[in-house]
């Protein structure tokens, strides 16, 4: 099953490689990984999306907690949560495709943030499924380039991950 694991860790050089090294050394899967400092600059927050059985996810959270730089670990997918991913797509936008591309971007609440005579860059946020759906909805041959941030997530309501 797919799990979203949120990690608060010391914002120190090497902390990221301790986490990524753990996943590769123990053969755990990473679908995506995002990391950035929090409002407290001494802490970073990381979101890892991984797929595995309950036993494996349990081991992953235990092994993460064992890392000295890791302060807290939460499996967001255990309860109600929100997840978002940002994608930038550069597409060919000429002739009749130009209007059609804008129309589809509007339907998905995307924004066109760069325009040239022949291309658009479309910015889109949402959960992974929505971004995949957008890519499915446009003509693949028109896609020049895509870049995605990977998932970041947060618990709903009173679920708070803080030191």
């Amino acid at each position, binding site marked *: 099953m797919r799990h979203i694991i949120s990690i608060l*860790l010391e914002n120190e*050089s*090497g902390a990221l*490689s*301790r986490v990524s090294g753990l996943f590769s050394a123990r053969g755990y899967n990473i679908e995506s990984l995002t990391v950035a400092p929090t409002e407290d600059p001494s802490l970073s927050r990381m979101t890892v999306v991984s797929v595995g059985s309950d036993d494996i996810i349990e081991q992953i959270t*235990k092994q993460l*907690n*064992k890392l*000295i*730089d890791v302060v807290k670990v939460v499996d967001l997918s255990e309860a109600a949560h929100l997840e978002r991913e940002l994608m930038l797509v550069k597409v060919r936008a000429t002739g009749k495709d130009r209007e059609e591309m804008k129309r589809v971007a509007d339907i998905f609440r995307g924004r066109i943030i760069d325009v040239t005579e022949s291309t658009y860059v479309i910015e889109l946020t949402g959960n992974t499924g929505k971004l995949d759906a957008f890519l499915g909805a446009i003509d693949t041959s028109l896609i020049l380039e895509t870049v995605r941030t990977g998932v970041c997530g947060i618990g709903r309501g009173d679920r708070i991950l803080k030191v």
Partner: protein
Amino acid sequence: MQLTGAEIVIRCLQEEKVEHVFGYPGGSVLFIYDELFKQDQIKHVLVRHEQAAVHAADAYSRSSQKIGVCLVTSGPGVTNAVTGIATAYMDSVPMVVLTSQVPTAYIGQDAFQEADTVGITRPCVKHNFLVKDVRDLAATIKKAFFLAKTGRPGPVLVDIPKDITNQKCEFVYPKTIAMRSYNPIVKGHSGQIKKAVQLLLDAKRPMIYTGGGVILSDAADKLTKLVRMLGFPITQTLMGLGGYPGTDRQHLGMLGMHGTYEANMAMQHCDVLLAIGARFDDRVIGSPGHFSEVPRKIVHVDIDPSSISKRVKVDVPIVGNVPDVLDEIVKQLEAAEAKPDAKSLAAWWKDIEEWRGRNCLRYKQGDLIMPQYVVEKLYEVTGGDAFVASDVGQHQMWAAQYYKFDKPRRWINSGGLGTMGFGLPAAMGARFANPKATVACITGEGSVQMNIQELSTCKQFRLPIKIICLNNGYLGMVRQWQEMFHGNRYSESYVDALPDFVKLAEAYGHVGMRIDKPADVEGAFKEAFVKHKNELVFMDFRTNPTANVFPMIAAGRGLSEMILAEDL
């Protein structure tokens, strides 16, 4: 007071009451060596290869309650040390590894003797640090000692660039360390312990299985008290030997791939299993699937939550420090009105005695020296009281099977990583930690050659280690597997062109002995341990080249699928 980084390193070690540092100098570590030279509180042990420095520091920790410290230079000093660090990590041995690094400004420029130490060692340390500011140095070393010995112990490495060792700052050694990200649990959850006690009292076929955690946490006395109080059978892993007296009737011997018939059968057929400081690894329980075929309730006590339910699903997990948890179990048992079910226990012991009756460690001593016989004689001659370091292979298993350890920290071997070359430097470390003790190194002609250069260190420091080399001319464990699983194709397991170990020992200034006949074994030991008490003696025992280690469970098979010597 303003001190240089190098002075700070020495002051920190003095604050930690470090008596010995095992190491090897080199370019980037020179300022630290200069400060070592100027003082006499800390004794430096100059090894002949960095791997040996780490193994010696590791065994120094294993054989005492002190923390081993080693010091090596950047680049090749570190890469040579990696095998030693990984060895300590796999067996959770507390240790502080100080490494020097090229100057800060050179890092990342492929400088002479530069290596990404923090990167290379990351997967085989509990934690590591690169010190980038001399003002962080003292606190970092304090953290290293704190991390190494608390929680699940392990090696911690501090990498110090050369320029940092020559910069000055005010020296303050922190008294305590608090880390928001590191708070190991000590006390076990009392509700969980209550459940465990109930299971133990209800058990019909109980079994206790203990590992290295008992040794590392110095819980041998408390364990012995609990086991005697319950009257249950106990088995210990390779790493746990000595945690409970090996000569006691309740002890069924070691379990696992080369464990005794009675220990493995009892482990497989018990209905309640109390696992303490052990981790159900592949060499211990074989196939987890086969192990789970027999239903049983498992209580697992361990300080590391990630060791629990990793290979085997556990019913009652108890995270905590072993001695604290054992205290609580004993307290609750004493308060409980119920007692263990004596009738079922008697029936269970009857089964066990039947299994024990198979006498699975029996062997025949013929014209050639049997390696088992050598270990048994060593046990007799040393009164079972020696510190025994071993290398890795058949001799290691025979040592574990036939030397009955009654006390903790006497049996020193590389269990997790299985590092050949561990034995001799480990014996050195054990002797430094226990300067009056009898120290033996049980090894093979393969393993001993992996760190043979340490005979020179032994001479320099007059270490009267007794090296018992079970020389069968083969990489014996490899040969055994080739015989059993690879159609007798002995691919590269015959070691041709062995040195004359007697002359080799003599060349290093030691005593060498060669023993070919079974009748000479005992006499040779007496000569080595009495006449040459204060000298290193290299005893080259020419043993039966085809002797194999039994019982044996083939890799991936189940605990009750043992091959016994009598089956062949």
